[in-house]
Protein backbone atom coordinates (compact mmCIF):
# COMPACT_ATOMS: atom_id res chain seq x y z
CA UNK A 1 0.00 0.00 0.00
CA UNK A 2 2.73 2.48 1.02
CA UNK A 3 4.91 1.79 -1.98
CA UNK A 4 1.85 2.26 -4.15
CA UNK A 5 1.18 5.70 -2.73
CA UNK A 6 4.78 6.80 -3.15
CA UNK A 7 4.74 5.44 -6.64
CA UNK A 8 1.63 7.44 -7.36
CA UNK A 9 3.21 10.62 -6.06
CA UNK A 10 6.38 10.25 -8.04
CA UNK A 11 4.73 9.70 -11.39
CA UNK A 12 4.23 12.66 -13.63
CA UNK A 13 3.05 15.32 -11.25
CA UNK A 14 1.92 17.77 -13.89
CA UNK A 15 2.14 17.06 -17.53
CA UNK A 16 0.64 19.76 -19.60
CA UNK A 17 -0.94 18.98 -22.88
CA UNK A 18 -4.22 19.85 -24.45
CA UNK A 19 -5.86 16.70 -23.12
CA UNK A 20 -5.19 17.74 -19.55
CA UNK A 21 -8.22 18.95 -17.66
CA UNK A 22 -8.13 22.74 -17.72
CA UNK A 23 -6.73 24.28 -14.59
CA UNK A 24 -9.65 26.34 -13.36
CA UNK A 25 -10.16 23.76 -10.65
CA UNK A 26 -7.60 22.45 -8.18
CA UNK A 27 -5.50 19.76 -9.78
CA UNK A 28 -5.23 16.38 -8.13
CA UNK A 29 -1.81 15.26 -7.01
CA UNK A 30 -1.15 12.72 -9.70
CA UNK A 31 -3.10 10.80 -12.26
CA UNK A 32 -4.38 7.38 -11.24
CA UNK A 33 -4.08 6.28 -14.84
CA UNK A 34 -1.73 7.80 -17.36
CA UNK A 35 -2.89 6.47 -20.71
CA UNK A 36 -0.50 7.06 -23.59
CA UNK A 37 -1.34 6.43 -27.23
CA UNK A 38 -3.66 3.56 -26.39
CA UNK A 39 -5.17 1.67 -29.32
CA UNK A 40 -7.33 -1.42 -28.89
CA UNK A 41 -8.47 -3.88 -31.50
CA UNK A 42 -11.08 -6.62 -31.65
CA UNK A 43 -9.70 -8.70 -34.48
CA UNK A 44 -9.24 -6.21 -37.29
CA UNK A 45 -11.64 -3.69 -35.81
CA UNK A 46 -9.89 -0.79 -34.11
CA UNK A 47 -12.23 0.07 -31.24
CA UNK A 48 -9.95 2.59 -29.49
CA UNK A 49 -7.76 4.87 -31.56
CA UNK A 50 -4.63 6.40 -30.11
CA UNK A 51 -6.12 7.72 -26.89
CA UNK A 52 -3.96 9.74 -24.51
CA UNK A 53 -5.52 10.82 -21.25
CA UNK A 54 -4.55 11.32 -17.60
CA UNK A 55 -7.30 10.17 -15.28
CA UNK A 56 -7.02 12.08 -12.00
CA UNK A 57 -6.81 10.20 -8.70
CA UNK A 58 -9.55 10.56 -6.08
CA UNK A 59 -11.90 12.21 -8.54
CA UNK A 60 -14.85 11.06 -10.58
CA UNK A 61 -14.18 10.94 -14.29
CA UNK A 62 -17.17 10.35 -16.54
CA UNK A 63 -16.82 8.86 -19.99
CA UNK A 64 -19.61 9.81 -22.35
CA UNK A 65 -20.29 9.19 -26.00
CA UNK A 66 -22.76 7.53 -28.33
CA UNK A 67 -23.20 3.74 -28.37
CA UNK A 68 -20.34 1.90 -29.99
CA UNK A 69 -17.89 4.75 -29.46
CA UNK A 70 -15.55 2.57 -27.42
CA UNK A 71 -16.41 3.81 -23.91
CA UNK A 72 -16.81 0.35 -22.41
CA UNK A 73 -13.83 -1.01 -24.32
CA UNK A 74 -11.68 1.80 -22.99
CA UNK A 75 -12.92 1.15 -19.44
CA UNK A 76 -12.10 -2.54 -19.77
CA UNK A 77 -8.69 -1.62 -21.09
CA UNK A 78 -8.03 -0.10 -17.68
CA UNK A 79 -8.30 -3.46 -15.89
CA UNK A 80 -7.54 -5.71 -18.86
CA UNK A 81 -10.98 -7.29 -18.70
CA UNK A 82 -11.36 -6.87 -22.47
CA UNK A 83 -8.90 -9.76 -22.76
CA UNK A 84 -11.78 -12.17 -22.10
CA UNK A 85 -12.84 -11.53 -25.68
CA UNK A 86 -10.71 -13.64 -28.01
CA UNK A 87 -8.47 -11.92 -30.56
CA UNK A 88 -8.11 -8.63 -28.76
CA UNK A 89 -4.94 -6.62 -29.16
CA UNK A 90 -3.60 -3.56 -27.43
CA UNK A 91 -0.99 -1.01 -28.40
CA UNK A 92 0.27 1.82 -26.21
CA UNK A 93 0.70 2.19 -22.47
CA UNK A 94 -1.59 2.38 -19.50
CA UNK A 95 0.40 3.46 -16.46
CA UNK A 96 -1.41 2.69 -13.25
CA UNK A 97 0.37 4.16 -10.24
CA UNK A 98 3.46 4.29 -12.38
CA UNK A 99 3.30 0.66 -13.47
CA UNK A 100 2.53 -0.31 -17.03
CA UNK A 101 -0.59 -2.52 -16.92
CA UNK A 102 0.49 -4.16 -20.15
CA UNK A 103 4.06 -4.84 -19.05
CA UNK A 104 5.38 -8.34 -19.69
CA UNK A 105 5.48 -9.45 -16.04
CA UNK A 106 2.10 -8.07 -15.00
CA UNK A 107 -0.47 -10.58 -13.73
CA UNK A 108 -3.92 -9.24 -14.62
CA UNK A 109 -5.42 -10.94 -11.55
CA UNK A 110 -3.14 -8.95 -9.22
CA UNK A 111 -3.89 -5.71 -11.05
CA UNK A 112 -7.62 -6.31 -10.81
CA UNK A 113 -7.42 -6.60 -7.03
CA UNK A 114 -6.44 -2.93 -7.05
CA UNK A 115 -8.92 -1.86 -9.72
CA UNK A 116 -12.49 -2.81 -8.86
CA UNK A 117 -15.32 -2.89 -11.35
CA UNK A 118 -19.09 -2.53 -11.30
CA UNK A 119 -21.09 -3.64 -14.31
CA UNK A 120 -24.17 -2.40 -16.11
CA UNK A 121 -26.15 -5.49 -15.23
CA UNK A 122 -25.97 -6.23 -11.53
CA UNK A 123 -24.45 -9.68 -11.18
CA UNK A 124 -24.41 -10.99 -7.61
CA UNK A 125 -23.36 -14.62 -7.62
CA UNK A 126 -26.59 -16.65 -7.55
CA UNK A 127 -25.21 -19.44 -5.38
CA UNK A 128 -24.09 -17.08 -2.63
CA UNK A 129 -25.72 -15.23 0.23
CA UNK A 130 -25.45 -11.46 0.64
CA UNK A 131 -22.51 -11.88 3.04
CA UNK A 132 -20.76 -14.43 0.81
CA UNK A 133 -21.15 -12.13 -2.18
CA UNK A 134 -19.47 -9.25 -0.36
CA UNK A 135 -16.64 -11.41 0.93
CA UNK A 136 -16.03 -13.63 -2.09
CA UNK A 137 -13.12 -11.54 -3.37
CA UNK A 138 -11.34 -11.68 -0.02
CA UNK A 139 -12.04 -15.36 0.60
CA UNK A 140 -11.01 -16.59 -2.82
CA UNK A 141 -7.89 -14.48 -2.58
CA UNK A 142 -6.94 -16.33 0.58
CA UNK A 143 -8.20 -14.21 3.51
CA UNK A 144 -9.26 -16.53 6.37
CA UNK A 145 -9.26 -14.19 9.37
CA UNK A 146 -12.88 -14.18 10.65
CA UNK A 147 -12.59 -10.89 12.49
CA UNK A 148 -11.21 -9.15 9.44
CA UNK A 149 -13.91 -10.67 7.24
CA UNK A 150 -16.69 -9.58 9.58
CA UNK A 151 -15.27 -6.07 9.83
CA UNK A 152 -14.93 -5.79 6.10
CA UNK A 153 -18.44 -7.13 5.54
CA UNK A 154 -20.04 -4.42 7.62
CA UNK A 155 -17.72 -1.68 6.40
CA UNK A 156 -18.29 -2.48 2.73
CA UNK A 157 -22.04 -2.71 3.09
CA UNK A 158 -22.08 0.57 5.00
CA UNK A 159 -20.00 2.28 2.34
CA UNK A 160 -22.36 0.93 -0.30
CA UNK A 161 -25.28 2.37 1.72
CA UNK A 162 -26.83 -1.06 1.99
CA UNK A 163 -26.05 -2.08 5.56
CA UNK A 164 -29.23 -0.80 7.20
CA UNK A 165 -31.35 -2.57 4.58
CA UNK A 166 -29.72 -5.99 4.76
CA UNK A 167 -28.04 -6.29 8.15
CA UNK A 168 -30.65 -8.76 9.37
CA UNK A 169 -30.70 -10.75 6.13
CA UNK A 170 -27.02 -11.37 5.51
CA UNK A 171 -27.60 -15.07 4.94
CA UNK A 172 -30.31 -14.55 2.32
CA UNK A 173 -29.35 -15.12 -1.31
CA UNK A 174 -27.85 -12.06 -2.96
CA UNK A 175 -30.26 -12.37 -5.85
CA UNK A 176 -33.26 -12.05 -3.50
CA UNK A 177 -32.60 -8.31 -3.31
CA UNK A 178 -34.22 -5.67 -5.54
CA UNK A 179 -32.40 -4.48 -8.66
CA UNK A 180 -31.05 -1.32 -7.02
CA UNK A 181 -30.00 -3.21 -3.90
CA UNK A 182 -28.29 -5.84 -6.04
CA UNK A 183 -26.26 -3.14 -7.75
CA UNK A 184 -25.23 -1.68 -4.38
CA UNK A 185 -24.35 -5.22 -3.29
CA UNK A 186 -22.07 -5.44 -6.33
CA UNK A 187 -20.48 -2.13 -5.31
CA UNK A 188 -19.98 -3.50 -1.79
CA UNK A 189 -18.42 -6.63 -3.29
CA UNK A 190 -16.07 -4.51 -5.39
CA UNK A 191 -14.95 -2.28 -2.50
CA UNK A 192 -14.58 -5.14 -0.02
CA UNK A 193 -11.14 -5.95 -1.41
CA UNK A 194 -10.22 -2.27 -0.92
CA UNK A 195 -9.17 -1.39 -4.44
CA UNK A 196 -7.75 2.01 -5.29
CA UNK A 197 -10.00 2.52 -8.28
CA UNK A 198 -13.61 1.77 -9.11
CA UNK A 199 -14.49 1.35 -12.75
CA UNK A 200 -18.23 1.64 -13.33
CA UNK A 201 -19.77 0.59 -16.61
CA UNK A 202 -23.18 2.28 -16.79
CA UNK A 203 -23.92 1.23 -13.22
CA UNK A 204 -27.37 2.81 -13.08
CA UNK A 205 -28.67 2.33 -16.59
CA UNK A 206 -30.87 -0.62 -15.61
CA UNK A 207 -32.23 1.05 -12.48
CA UNK A 208 -35.25 3.22 -11.70
CA UNK A 209 -34.73 6.92 -10.86
CA UNK A 210 -34.71 6.44 -7.09
CA UNK A 211 -32.18 3.61 -7.21
CA UNK A 212 -30.17 5.68 -9.70
CA UNK A 213 -30.15 8.61 -7.29
CA UNK A 214 -28.84 6.37 -4.52
CA UNK A 215 -26.02 5.10 -6.74
CA UNK A 216 -25.11 8.68 -7.68
CA UNK A 217 -25.06 9.78 -4.05
CA UNK A 218 -22.87 6.79 -3.36
CA UNK A 219 -20.44 7.78 -6.11
CA UNK A 220 -20.11 11.24 -4.62
CA UNK A 221 -19.35 9.74 -1.21
CA UNK A 222 -16.93 7.14 -2.52
CA UNK A 223 -14.73 9.61 -4.37
CA UNK A 224 -13.11 10.66 -1.12
CA UNK A 225 -11.39 7.28 -1.07
CA UNK A 226 -11.46 6.06 -4.63
CA UNK A 227 -10.60 7.09 -8.11
CA UNK A 228 -13.82 6.53 -9.99
CA UNK A 229 -14.20 6.16 -13.72
CA UNK A 230 -17.80 5.92 -14.80
CA UNK A 231 -19.12 5.18 -18.26
CA UNK A 232 -22.58 6.60 -18.73
CA UNK A 233 -25.15 7.18 -21.41
CA UNK A 234 -26.91 9.64 -19.21
CA UNK A 235 -25.48 13.13 -19.60
CA UNK A 236 -27.38 14.49 -16.62
CA UNK A 237 -25.71 11.79 -14.60
CA UNK A 238 -22.30 12.74 -15.91
CA UNK A 239 -22.92 16.41 -15.11
CA UNK A 240 -24.32 15.64 -11.66
CA UNK A 241 -21.72 13.32 -10.27
CA UNK A 242 -18.44 13.71 -12.13
CA UNK A 243 -15.56 16.13 -11.75
CA UNK A 244 -14.11 15.53 -15.19
CA UNK A 245 -15.71 14.34 -18.38
CA UNK A 246 -14.18 12.65 -21.38
CA UNK A 247 -16.13 12.58 -24.63
CA UNK A 248 -15.43 9.62 -26.92
CA UNK A 249 -16.58 9.38 -30.49
CA UNK A 250 -15.81 6.57 -32.95
CA UNK A 251 -13.01 5.25 -30.76
CA UNK A 252 -11.30 8.59 -30.38
CA UNK A 253 -11.07 10.85 -27.37
CA UNK A 254 -12.57 14.08 -28.66
CA UNK A 255 -12.42 16.21 -25.55
CA UNK A 256 -11.48 15.90 -21.91
CA UNK A 257 -12.01 18.69 -19.41
CA UNK A 258 -13.74 19.74 -16.24
CA UNK A 259 -17.29 18.53 -16.31
CA UNK A 260 -18.57 22.07 -15.88
CA UNK A 261 -16.58 23.23 -18.88
CA UNK A 262 -17.63 20.30 -21.08
CA UNK A 263 -21.28 20.94 -20.40
CA UNK A 264 -21.22 24.74 -20.51
CA UNK A 265 -18.50 25.60 -22.94
CA UNK A 266 -17.10 22.66 -24.88
CA UNK A 267 -14.12 23.39 -27.12
CA UNK A 268 -14.95 20.94 -29.87
CA UNK A 269 -17.91 21.11 -32.16
CA UNK A 270 -18.63 17.34 -31.92
CA UNK A 271 -18.84 17.54 -28.14
CA UNK A 272 -21.32 20.37 -28.33
CA UNK A 273 -23.43 18.54 -30.90
CA UNK A 274 -23.51 15.44 -28.72
CA UNK A 275 -24.36 17.07 -25.41
CA UNK A 276 -27.02 19.24 -26.98
CA UNK A 277 -28.58 16.12 -28.47
CA UNK A 278 -27.96 16.84 -32.12
CA UNK A 279 -26.68 13.30 -32.59
CA UNK A 280 -25.97 10.12 -30.66
Amino acid at each position, binding site marked *: MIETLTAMKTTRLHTVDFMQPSTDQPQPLAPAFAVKNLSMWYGANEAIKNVTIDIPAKRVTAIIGPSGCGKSTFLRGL*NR*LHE*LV*PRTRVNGDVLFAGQNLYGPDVD*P*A*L*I*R*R*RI*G*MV*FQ*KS*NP*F*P*TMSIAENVL*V*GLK*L*NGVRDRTLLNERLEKSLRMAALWSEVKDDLRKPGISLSGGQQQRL*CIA*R*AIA*IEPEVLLMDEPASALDPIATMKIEELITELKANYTIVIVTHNMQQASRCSDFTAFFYMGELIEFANTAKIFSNPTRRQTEDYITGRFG
Partner: protein
Amino acid sequence: MSGSANHQFRKATSLIASLLCSIAALLVIVPLGLIFFYLLQSGLSSLNLAFFTHLPKPVGEPGGGMANAIVGSGQLLALASLIGVPVGVLGGVYLAEYGTARANASLRFVADVLNGVPSIIWGVVVYGLVVLPFKSFSAYAGGLALGCMMIPLIMRTTEEVLLLVPGGYREAALALGISHWKTIVHIVMKTASKGIVTGVLLALARIAGETAPLLFTAFGNRFWNRSLSEPIAALPLQIFTYAISPYDDWHRQAWAGALVLVAMIFLINLLVRFLARGRAARVT
Protein backbone atom coordinates in the same frame (compact mmCIF):
# COMPACT_ATOMS: atom_id res chain seq x y z
CA MET B 1 -63.55 -18.82 -54.31
CA SER B 2 -60.15 -20.37 -54.53
CA GLY B 3 -59.19 -18.70 -51.23
CA SER B 4 -61.77 -20.77 -49.40
CA ALA B 5 -60.64 -24.02 -51.04
CA ASN B 6 -57.11 -23.14 -50.12
CA HIS B 7 -58.22 -22.60 -46.55
CA GLN B 8 -59.91 -26.01 -46.45
CA PHE B 9 -56.75 -27.61 -47.79
CA ARG B 10 -54.63 -25.91 -45.15
CA LYS B 11 -56.95 -27.01 -42.40
CA ALA B 12 -56.76 -30.60 -43.62
CA THR B 13 -52.96 -30.50 -43.84
CA SER B 14 -52.76 -29.06 -40.35
CA LEU B 15 -55.05 -31.77 -39.03
CA ILE B 16 -53.01 -34.54 -40.66
CA ALA B 17 -49.75 -33.09 -39.35
CA SER B 18 -51.00 -32.86 -35.79
CA LEU B 19 -52.42 -36.38 -36.06
CA LEU B 20 -49.08 -37.78 -37.23
CA CYS B 21 -47.28 -36.00 -34.39
CA SER B 22 -49.74 -37.36 -31.85
CA ILE B 23 -49.27 -40.88 -33.16
CA ALA B 24 -45.50 -40.51 -32.96
CA ALA B 25 -45.81 -39.23 -29.38
CA LEU B 26 -47.98 -42.20 -28.50
CA LEU B 27 -45.44 -44.57 -30.05
CA VAL B 28 -42.82 -43.11 -27.72
CA ILE B 29 -44.90 -43.63 -24.61
CA VAL B 30 -46.51 -46.99 -25.38
CA PRO B 31 -43.31 -49.11 -25.42
CA LEU B 32 -42.27 -47.74 -22.04
CA GLY B 33 -45.69 -48.60 -20.63
CA LEU B 34 -45.54 -52.06 -22.18
CA ILE B 35 -42.05 -52.73 -20.85
CA PHE B 36 -43.02 -51.69 -17.36
CA PHE B 37 -46.26 -53.62 -17.41
CA TYR B 38 -44.65 -56.77 -18.73
CA LEU B 39 -41.72 -56.54 -16.31
CA LEU B 40 -44.04 -56.05 -13.36
CA GLN B 41 -46.20 -58.96 -14.46
CA SER B 42 -43.30 -61.34 -15.01
CA GLY B 43 -40.82 -60.16 -12.42
CA LEU B 44 -42.81 -59.05 -9.42
CA SER B 45 -43.77 -62.57 -8.36
CA SER B 46 -40.11 -63.64 -8.14
CA LEU B 47 -39.08 -60.54 -6.25
CA ASN B 48 -38.62 -61.16 -2.53
CA LEU B 49 -36.18 -60.32 0.21
CA ALA B 50 -33.98 -63.28 -0.68
CA PHE B 51 -33.52 -61.86 -4.16
CA PHE B 52 -31.74 -58.85 -2.65
CA THR B 53 -29.83 -60.72 0.07
CA HIS B 54 -28.86 -64.16 -1.26
CA LEU B 55 -26.30 -65.49 -3.69
CA PRO B 56 -27.50 -67.43 -6.74
CA LYS B 57 -28.34 -71.05 -5.99
CA PRO B 58 -26.93 -73.91 -8.10
CA VAL B 59 -29.12 -75.18 -10.94
CA GLY B 60 -32.07 -77.15 -9.70
CA GLU B 61 -32.17 -75.65 -6.22
CA PRO B 62 -35.06 -73.24 -5.90
CA GLY B 63 -34.68 -69.75 -4.38
CA GLY B 64 -31.50 -67.77 -4.16
CA GLY B 65 -31.01 -64.20 -5.30
CA MET B 66 -28.82 -61.73 -7.09
CA ALA B 67 -27.32 -59.93 -4.12
CA ASN B 68 -23.80 -60.28 -5.55
CA ALA B 69 -24.91 -58.90 -8.92
CA ILE B 70 -26.67 -55.90 -7.36
CA VAL B 71 -23.64 -55.06 -5.24
CA GLY B 72 -21.35 -55.84 -8.19
CA SER B 73 -23.24 -53.40 -10.40
CA GLY B 74 -22.86 -50.77 -7.68
CA GLN B 75 -19.10 -51.41 -7.52
CA LEU B 76 -18.75 -51.30 -11.28
CA LEU B 77 -20.69 -48.03 -11.49
CA ALA B 78 -18.49 -46.58 -8.73
CA LEU B 79 -15.32 -47.63 -10.57
CA ALA B 80 -16.72 -46.26 -13.83
CA SER B 81 -17.52 -42.95 -12.11
CA LEU B 82 -13.97 -42.73 -10.76
CA ILE B 83 -12.77 -42.66 -14.35
CA GLY B 84 -15.70 -41.10 -16.18
CA VAL B 85 -16.61 -38.23 -13.86
CA PRO B 86 -13.25 -36.49 -13.44
CA VAL B 87 -12.17 -36.94 -17.05
CA GLY B 88 -15.61 -36.05 -18.40
CA VAL B 89 -16.13 -33.01 -16.17
CA LEU B 90 -12.62 -31.64 -16.69
CA GLY B 91 -12.95 -32.26 -20.43
CA GLY B 92 -16.20 -30.29 -20.37
CA VAL B 93 -14.45 -27.49 -18.48
CA TYR B 94 -11.76 -27.44 -21.13
CA LEU B 95 -14.36 -27.17 -23.90
CA ALA B 96 -16.31 -24.42 -22.17
CA GLU B 97 -13.52 -22.36 -20.61
CA TYR B 98 -10.11 -23.00 -22.17
CA GLY B 99 -10.28 -24.51 -25.65
CA THR B 100 -9.72 -22.49 -28.78
CA ALA B 101 -12.43 -22.67 -31.40
CA ARG B 102 -10.40 -25.05 -33.54
CA ALA B 103 -9.39 -27.41 -30.72
CA ASN B 104 -12.99 -27.45 -29.51
CA ALA B 105 -14.39 -28.35 -32.90
CA SER B 106 -12.18 -31.41 -33.20
CA LEU B 107 -12.67 -32.37 -29.56
CA ARG B 108 -16.45 -32.18 -29.89
CA PHE B 109 -16.28 -34.24 -33.06
CA VAL B 110 -14.21 -36.92 -31.34
CA ALA B 111 -16.54 -36.94 -28.33
CA ASP B 112 -19.57 -37.34 -30.57
CA VAL B 113 -17.93 -40.20 -32.48
CA LEU B 114 -16.96 -41.89 -29.19
CA ASN B 115 -20.55 -41.47 -28.10
CA GLY B 116 -21.62 -43.43 -31.11
CA VAL B 117 -19.10 -46.25 -30.73
CA PRO B 118 -21.09 -49.46 -30.13
CA SER B 119 -20.74 -50.52 -26.53
CA ILE B 120 -19.40 -53.97 -27.42
CA ILE B 121 -16.43 -52.27 -29.06
CA TRP B 122 -15.53 -50.75 -25.69
CA GLY B 123 -15.64 -54.25 -24.26
CA VAL B 124 -13.33 -55.61 -26.96
CA VAL B 125 -10.90 -52.68 -26.63
CA VAL B 126 -10.63 -53.03 -22.86
CA TYR B 127 -10.32 -56.79 -23.27
CA GLY B 128 -7.29 -56.23 -25.46
CA LEU B 129 -5.79 -53.47 -23.34
CA VAL B 130 -6.43 -54.75 -19.83
CA VAL B 131 -7.79 -58.27 -19.66
CA LEU B 132 -5.21 -59.91 -21.96
CA PRO B 133 -2.08 -58.30 -20.44
CA PHE B 134 -3.23 -59.03 -16.86
CA LYS B 135 -4.53 -62.47 -17.88
CA SER B 136 -7.74 -62.01 -15.88
CA PHE B 137 -11.21 -60.63 -16.20
CA SER B 138 -11.68 -58.09 -13.46
CA ALA B 139 -13.91 -55.44 -11.92
CA TYR B 140 -11.27 -52.92 -12.94
CA ALA B 141 -11.61 -53.87 -16.58
CA GLY B 142 -15.41 -53.65 -16.40
CA GLY B 143 -15.24 -50.29 -14.64
CA LEU B 144 -12.82 -48.99 -17.25
CA ALA B 145 -15.06 -50.04 -20.13
CA LEU B 146 -18.09 -48.38 -18.55
CA GLY B 147 -16.07 -45.33 -17.49
CA CYS B 148 -14.85 -44.78 -21.05
CA MET B 149 -18.47 -44.78 -22.19
CA MET B 150 -19.31 -42.13 -19.59
CA ILE B 151 -16.58 -39.70 -20.63
CA PRO B 152 -18.05 -38.28 -23.84
CA LEU B 153 -21.56 -38.14 -22.34
CA ILE B 154 -20.45 -36.21 -19.26
CA MET B 155 -18.09 -34.03 -21.25
CA ARG B 156 -20.77 -32.72 -23.56
CA THR B 157 -23.40 -32.13 -20.87
CA THR B 158 -20.84 -30.40 -18.64
CA GLU B 159 -19.81 -28.15 -21.50
CA GLU B 160 -23.41 -27.25 -22.22
CA VAL B 161 -24.34 -26.34 -18.66
CA LEU B 162 -21.12 -24.35 -18.16
CA LEU B 163 -21.87 -22.33 -21.28
CA LEU B 164 -25.31 -21.57 -19.85
CA VAL B 165 -23.70 -19.67 -16.95
CA PRO B 166 -23.94 -15.98 -17.92
CA GLY B 167 -20.63 -14.35 -18.83
CA GLY B 168 -21.37 -11.58 -16.33
CA TYR B 169 -20.49 -13.89 -13.45
CA ARG B 170 -17.11 -14.73 -14.96
CA GLU B 171 -16.42 -11.05 -15.55
CA ALA B 172 -17.46 -10.12 -12.03
CA ALA B 173 -15.20 -12.77 -10.52
CA LEU B 174 -12.19 -11.94 -12.70
CA ALA B 175 -12.69 -8.23 -11.99
CA LEU B 176 -12.29 -9.06 -8.29
CA GLY B 177 -8.81 -10.35 -9.04
CA ILE B 178 -9.87 -13.97 -8.63
CA SER B 179 -7.73 -16.28 -10.74
CA HIS B 180 -9.16 -17.97 -13.81
CA TRP B 181 -9.10 -21.43 -12.25
CA LYS B 182 -10.74 -20.31 -9.00
CA THR B 183 -13.34 -18.43 -11.01
CA ILE B 184 -14.14 -21.62 -12.89
CA VAL B 185 -14.34 -23.81 -9.78
CA HIS B 186 -15.96 -21.47 -7.26
CA ILE B 187 -18.16 -19.37 -9.50
CA VAL B 188 -18.91 -21.04 -12.83
CA MET B 189 -18.97 -24.70 -11.78
CA LYS B 190 -20.73 -23.89 -8.53
CA THR B 191 -23.43 -22.04 -10.43
CA ALA B 192 -23.79 -24.96 -12.85
CA SER B 193 -23.36 -27.69 -10.22
CA LYS B 194 -26.88 -29.05 -10.50
CA GLY B 195 -26.55 -29.30 -14.25
CA ILE B 196 -23.22 -31.11 -13.92
CA VAL B 197 -24.68 -33.58 -11.41
CA THR B 198 -27.64 -34.09 -13.72
CA GLY B 199 -25.27 -34.92 -16.58
CA VAL B 200 -23.36 -37.40 -14.41
CA LEU B 201 -26.56 -39.11 -13.29
CA LEU B 202 -27.84 -39.35 -16.85
CA ALA B 203 -24.57 -40.95 -17.90
CA LEU B 204 -24.86 -43.40 -14.98
CA ALA B 205 -28.41 -44.26 -15.97
CA ARG B 206 -27.21 -44.76 -19.52
CA ILE B 207 -24.42 -47.22 -18.60
CA ALA B 208 -26.15 -48.97 -15.69
CA GLY B 209 -27.88 -51.36 -18.07
CA GLU B 210 -24.93 -51.98 -20.39
CA THR B 211 -24.17 -55.66 -20.86
CA ALA B 212 -21.98 -55.90 -23.92
CA PRO B 213 -18.94 -54.02 -22.55
CA LEU B 214 -18.98 -56.27 -19.46
CA LEU B 215 -19.05 -59.58 -21.35
CA PHE B 216 -15.28 -59.70 -21.88
CA THR B 217 -14.24 -57.45 -19.02
CA ALA B 218 -16.16 -57.99 -15.77
CA PHE B 219 -17.22 -61.41 -17.07
CA GLY B 220 -19.63 -62.17 -14.22
CA ASN B 221 -19.29 -64.21 -11.06
CA ARG B 222 -21.70 -66.48 -9.21
CA PHE B 223 -20.16 -65.62 -5.87
CA TRP B 224 -19.17 -62.52 -3.98
CA ASN B 225 -16.30 -60.67 -5.52
CA ARG B 226 -13.30 -60.80 -3.15
CA SER B 227 -10.98 -58.53 -5.06
CA LEU B 228 -11.51 -55.90 -7.74
CA SER B 229 -8.87 -57.63 -9.85
CA GLU B 230 -11.11 -60.69 -10.14
CA PRO B 231 -14.25 -61.24 -12.20
CA ILE B 232 -17.31 -59.55 -10.76
CA ALA B 233 -21.05 -60.06 -11.14
CA ALA B 234 -23.25 -57.36 -12.61
CA LEU B 235 -27.01 -57.19 -12.84
CA PRO B 236 -27.22 -56.93 -16.66
CA LEU B 237 -24.75 -59.82 -17.05
CA GLN B 238 -26.66 -61.97 -14.62
CA ILE B 239 -29.91 -61.22 -16.42
CA PHE B 240 -28.25 -62.15 -19.71
CA THR B 241 -26.89 -65.43 -18.36
CA TYR B 242 -30.18 -66.39 -16.73
CA ALA B 243 -32.34 -65.35 -19.66
CA ILE B 244 -30.45 -67.53 -22.17
CA SER B 245 -30.40 -70.50 -19.79
CA PRO B 246 -32.83 -73.42 -20.31
CA TYR B 247 -34.24 -73.32 -16.74
CA ASP B 248 -37.63 -71.86 -15.89
CA ASP B 249 -36.50 -70.93 -12.41
CA TRP B 250 -33.62 -68.87 -13.82
CA HIS B 251 -35.96 -67.22 -16.31
CA ARG B 252 -38.14 -66.00 -13.47
CA GLN B 253 -35.07 -64.63 -11.70
CA ALA B 254 -33.98 -62.91 -14.88
CA TRP B 255 -37.35 -61.13 -15.01
CA ALA B 256 -36.97 -60.04 -11.42
CA GLY B 257 -33.45 -58.79 -12.16
CA ALA B 258 -34.69 -56.87 -15.18
CA LEU B 259 -37.37 -55.27 -13.05
CA VAL B 260 -34.83 -54.21 -10.44
CA LEU B 261 -32.52 -52.80 -13.12
CA VAL B 262 -35.26 -50.79 -14.80
CA ALA B 263 -36.49 -49.55 -11.44
CA MET B 264 -32.94 -48.36 -10.62
CA ILE B 265 -32.64 -46.49 -13.90
CA PHE B 266 -36.12 -45.08 -13.44
CA LEU B 267 -35.17 -43.78 -9.99
CA ILE B 268 -31.99 -42.16 -11.32
CA ASN B 269 -34.06 -40.41 -13.98
CA LEU B 270 -36.57 -39.25 -11.39
CA LEU B 271 -33.69 -37.81 -9.37
CA VAL B 272 -32.49 -36.02 -12.49
CA ARG B 273 -35.93 -34.54 -13.05
CA PHE B 274 -36.04 -33.39 -9.46
CA LEU B 275 -32.63 -31.70 -9.71
CA ALA B 276 -33.40 -30.16 -13.09
CA ARG B 277 -36.60 -28.65 -11.74
CA GLY B 278 -34.68 -27.10 -8.87
CA ARG B 279 -32.29 -25.55 -11.38
CA ALA B 280 -35.06 -24.10 -13.52
CA ALA B 281 -36.67 -22.60 -10.44
CA ARG B 282 -33.41 -20.93 -9.49
CA VAL B 283 -32.91 -19.28 -12.86
CA THR B 284 -36.26 -17.52 -12.86
